[in-house]
């Protein structure tokens, strides 16, 4: 199989030959295509200087980090870079570029093309000029010069520009394989067969984690199976009992259904990565990578989520809490894939809360994260599931805390934190802080339960 990567760049079709599909989009743009407007600031998908816009077939524009995107992922997509923005009739700067310049929103200018692309996605996406939305749209872009105020001003000016027509995409109907190392199946059956044949190939969804192997470590994986085009893995389904999220659905795709069923996730998901990350990153990836500080596992464990693990041998269901065996070790068999995550909806009398602590509010990795599902009847807590991230080698349930809470109330639950967890010291927080914060999050939970009208969260201010 010698397929060629084809995509659309700034309205022009591109077909690549003789390039590794593990080349990052940023390196290709700068070093091969000679488009120097897109910058490398961190090579870890965090600063946003490399932001480009993915143009979906339905006209939706999503900002993404080109530094951690592999060329193989871009096959069949349409990408726009800062060089591809033009004013009406194709001449002069685009309205977002004019607004950024006229708002004095540039100083050193190095981060600017990335901001411009985030602003472009925002401005042509039909969103309103609300501060909360603007900050959400900018969370994936760092500026060290301006203090952001003029950038926010420019965003206010460009909100609600006409939605631009969808690009013409050269969509690919069947599976593809690039360079014998990048496999992109288009059906579950093909994926499972491929997985069975090549158990050593890494499963790649949005590359918001694995992409760093290519961008930062400069050691791209030898072989990957790209799961993002498998329809069974990207579907989001909902019944009156549960929400099922395909493992390779992006956060952006999964968020509406999740937030509708669990409103507390709205703020939580907004703080997970940035738009650039959420346009590519997936629940399956967040779970499969088995980081002790992944944001989704603690809340999904608290919500009693189940995984559907599938292989050519068949499918099985596994409670998420049983998936994490040890630090970065999971119950996934070598021939299995995570097909989907099913989350039961809340029953009457059930409430769900979640918390995330980090040094910065937006786009930071959790120091401690927690999810809590409680069943409260006539003021009595008669069932509870609590899970923490950042407190142990894996995200996990706090069973002794749950038991203490059910039996003896919050004071006992708070005291049980120390028996349940032995966290570590690192740059995100000391063990002592993690323990104290976890105890205090239970106090916050108690306040939420006791006086739900009261603001007990600094974000409420």
């Amino acid at each position, binding site marked *: 199989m010698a397929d060629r990567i084809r995509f659309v760049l700034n309205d022009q079709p591109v077909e690549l030959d003789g390039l590794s599909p593990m080349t990052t989009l940023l390196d290709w743009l700068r070093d091969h295509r000679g488009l120097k*407007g897109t910058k490398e600031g961190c090579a870890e998908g965090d600063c946003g200087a490399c932001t480009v816009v993915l143009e979906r077939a339905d006209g939706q524009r999503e900002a993404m980090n080109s530094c951690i995107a592999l060329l193989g992922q871009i096959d069949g997509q349409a990408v726009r870079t800062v060089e591809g923005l033009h004013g009406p009739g194709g001449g002069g700067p685009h309205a977002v570029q004019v607004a950024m310049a006229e708002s*004095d929103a540039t100083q050193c200018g190095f981060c600017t093309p990335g901001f411009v692309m985030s602003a472009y996605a925002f401005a042509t996406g039909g969103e309103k000029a609300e501060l909360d939305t603007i900050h959400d749209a900018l969370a994936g872009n760092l500026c060290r010069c301006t203090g952001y105020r003029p950038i926010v001003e420019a965003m206010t000016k460009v909100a609600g520009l006409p939605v631009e027509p969808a690009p013409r995409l050269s969509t690919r109907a069947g599976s593809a394989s690039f360079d014998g190392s990048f496999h992109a199946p288009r059906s579950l059956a093909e994926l499972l067969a491929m997985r069975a044949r090549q158990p050593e190939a890494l499963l790649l969804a949005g590359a918001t984690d694995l992409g760093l192997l290519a961008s*930062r470590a400069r050691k791209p994986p030898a072989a990957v199976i790209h799961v993002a085009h498998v329809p069974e893995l990207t579907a989001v389904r909902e019944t009156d009992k549960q929400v099922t999220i395909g493992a390779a659905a992006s956060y952006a795709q999964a968020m509406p259904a999740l937030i509708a069923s669990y409103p507390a996730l709205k703020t939580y998901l907004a703080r997970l990565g940035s738009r650039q990350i959420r346009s590519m990153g997936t629940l399956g990836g967040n779970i499969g990578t088995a980081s002790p500080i992944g944001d989704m596992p603690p809340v999904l464990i608290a919500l009693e989520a189940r995984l559907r693990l599938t292989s050519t041998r068949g499918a099985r269901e596994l409670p998420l809490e049983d998936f994490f065996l040890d630090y970065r070790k999971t119950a996934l068999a070598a021939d299995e894939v995570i097909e989907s995550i099913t989350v039961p909806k809340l029953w009457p009398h059930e409430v769900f809360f979640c918390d995330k602590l980090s040094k910065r509010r937006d786009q930071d990795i959790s120091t401690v994260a927690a999810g809590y599902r409680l069943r409260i009847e006539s003021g009595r807590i008669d069932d509870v599931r609590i899970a923490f991230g950042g407190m142990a080698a894996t995200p996990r349930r706090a069973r002794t805390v749950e038991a203490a809470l059910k039996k003896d109330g919050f004071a006992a639950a708070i005291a049980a934190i120390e028996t349940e967890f032995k966290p570590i010291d690192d740059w995100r927080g000391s063990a002592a802080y993690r323990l104290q914060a976890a105890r205090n999050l239970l106090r916050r939970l108690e306040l939420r339960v006791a006086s739900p009208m009261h603001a007990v969260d600094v974000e409420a201010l």
Partner: protein
Amino acid sequence: MKGQVHTAQRHDSALKHVTGQALYIDDIAEPPGTLHAALVLSPIASGRVRKLDLSPAASSPGVVAVFAAGDIPGLNNIASPGKHEPLFAEDKVEHAGQPLALVVAHSLDAARAAAERARLDIEPGEAILDIQTALARQAYVQAPSTILRGDPAAALKTAPHKLTAEFGVGGQEHFYLEGQIAFALPGEDGDLVVHSSTQHPTEVQHVCAQVLGCEYNRVTTMVRRLGGGFGGKESNASWVAAAAALAAAKTGKPVKLRLPREIDIIATGKRHGFDYRYTVGFDDEGRVLALDASLAADAGWSLDMTPGVVARALTHVDNAYWIPHVRAVGYACRTNKQSNTAFRGFGGPQGVLVMEDAIDRIARHLGRDANDVRALNFYGPGGDETPYGQKVDENHLARCWAEVKQLGEWERRRAEVDAFNQANPVLKRGLGLFPLKFGISFNIPHMNQAGALVHVYTDGSIRLNHGGTEMGQGLFIKVAQVVAEVFKVDIDRIRPSATSTAEVPNTSPTAASTGSDLNGWAAWEAANTIRQHMVTFAAEHFGVAAEDIEFADGNVRIAKPGSNQVMSFGEIAKLCYLGRVSLSSTGFYKTPKVHWDAAAMRGHPFFYFSFGAAMAEVAIDTLTGESRVLRADLVQDCGASLNPAIDLGQIEGAFVQGQGWLTCEELWWDKQGRLRTVGPSTYKIPGSRDVPAVFNVRMLENAPSREATIFRSKAVGEPPLLLATAVWTALKDAIGAVADHRTAVRLDAPATPERVLAAIATLGK
């Protein structure tokens, strides 16, 4: 006429920034054969190098050459001669991240992969990893320095009240978005052009020449723009450039060295963290009588610019306050960490924290309002001399203070915040006020000089060059405004050009907020010389008096009795050329009045002071330690601002950068001394949501500089960074509210959620 001084002008590169057309060094087209370099770094904080085996790197695919200390033809020294700061470590390594060697290959990936294959045999030694250990062992990079006035020991003894306290503040990573980069291109006879993202092209030139063992005239440094500097590309750019220059000279090929973010962060210096201990004596009203303070800076492994940073910290320990008896001792602690360096404010931000902390404690002790105590101690008549002997002239403190309290609605909001705190057991709010006095000039007098080169062409277009570098701060547009003002032409006629040691030599770094003060005057001198040539020629040519030649609106008017001849600026330029008149000139400026005795720590180190005031409101969550800055009101003295649009950007950006330093930006080393916050995923600079939702910025109006600064403007790069101190003070206020303000609060910075929670925990004890 477009682009006069004192008008808001957009950054000259704004349209290029937004369209991606602005070229940074990594965007310059590479000649065929360009090689790429990668560094080999020490993974160990302290140790003896037993063996450095580069052969596995040298034999890696694509590798052209490897270089270590022994391959350096000149001096293995990136500091000025006499000091020892090796480009590549020799027998010992002194911090984790110290460069040992350079690998040069046909591609960047090949160079980086090969660099990882170097075999390092380093015998680990004992490492000093914190200030307190260094103090205990008296491990310093220079002898302690002291500012002394009066008899603080005696004054403390007799003072009615006395308090002693300790606290600390962390360092700060510059996090310029464009990492360190240099691109060295060899020419004939060993000449070298070095494109360097540097704030100090002349030092790049000198260090490259020193490492190569050649004369300065063989090396030309060029830089059109930097993707941010903030002090991090003052000395650190030089060794990056020298490494690239070494490889280019040795291979005869163009060599680019671009540091990946992680390497950049672990190999380069940062803002100095400080530990403080002080005793302050005061009277019943809160009048400060004496201060005895120790300021211990984490210098890291080498001297770098630590002496200047410590000196500026000591000369800013007084901040806005008259202190009759002062002893302030600065310790430059040697640790096995990155060699800390210049960072916007250069010790000033660290210095002012002492008195702000002291006044909060004094007020708490006396049960008085801290801000009344602040105002009570301001410099003023009868108490207007700094501890180092310079008078506080043109004192705008009281005015800034009154304006910020009005802008921030102090009375009303104090009451609102107190009411909020009464009603909320979990969330607390706090208010902080901060007065600012910041000295402008390099503390080293000879550095206060600048040169410029202006050409007028025969079509009337003008090319401008000066020694200052454009790093986003808008220096090029400001200096262009000055030149436009001299010739009375539209600013569009002036083409600022890349900073180059070949055009203007022997320059000072663009630092210490002095960029437009120095280069503005130098350019004015150059332009004015040409203008004088033009006037002299035109007067003779048209037979009128010099006073009758008038430059206005892009034209030159020759007022002759009976006629008013008007020529365009281009026409007069052409006429001058035909009349064989020079239309090119250098300009030179040296700051008057400054002198400094570094041994005695006395003198007149600053041409003038910049003033300001800030009010900040914060909210904290007492359960988690999370905080938010809700509002900031700033008043900043810019003199008669050259460009209010640019200055506004400087004020806002500096404040947010200072807020980051004091809140979310935390450097974290593990027990082996390896820095582990090495990218934006682990080192958190403020994001857009962290900026105060209400952010009011005023420039002090009708306050032209009394000193003869360029068009009576004042420097703006650094002073507003210190205004963020109000955030720290506000956080202490919010924390104090937990115990109803009965207890003084120790809050070390950065005030991460963890430190806020720790500060709350101490209140009960």
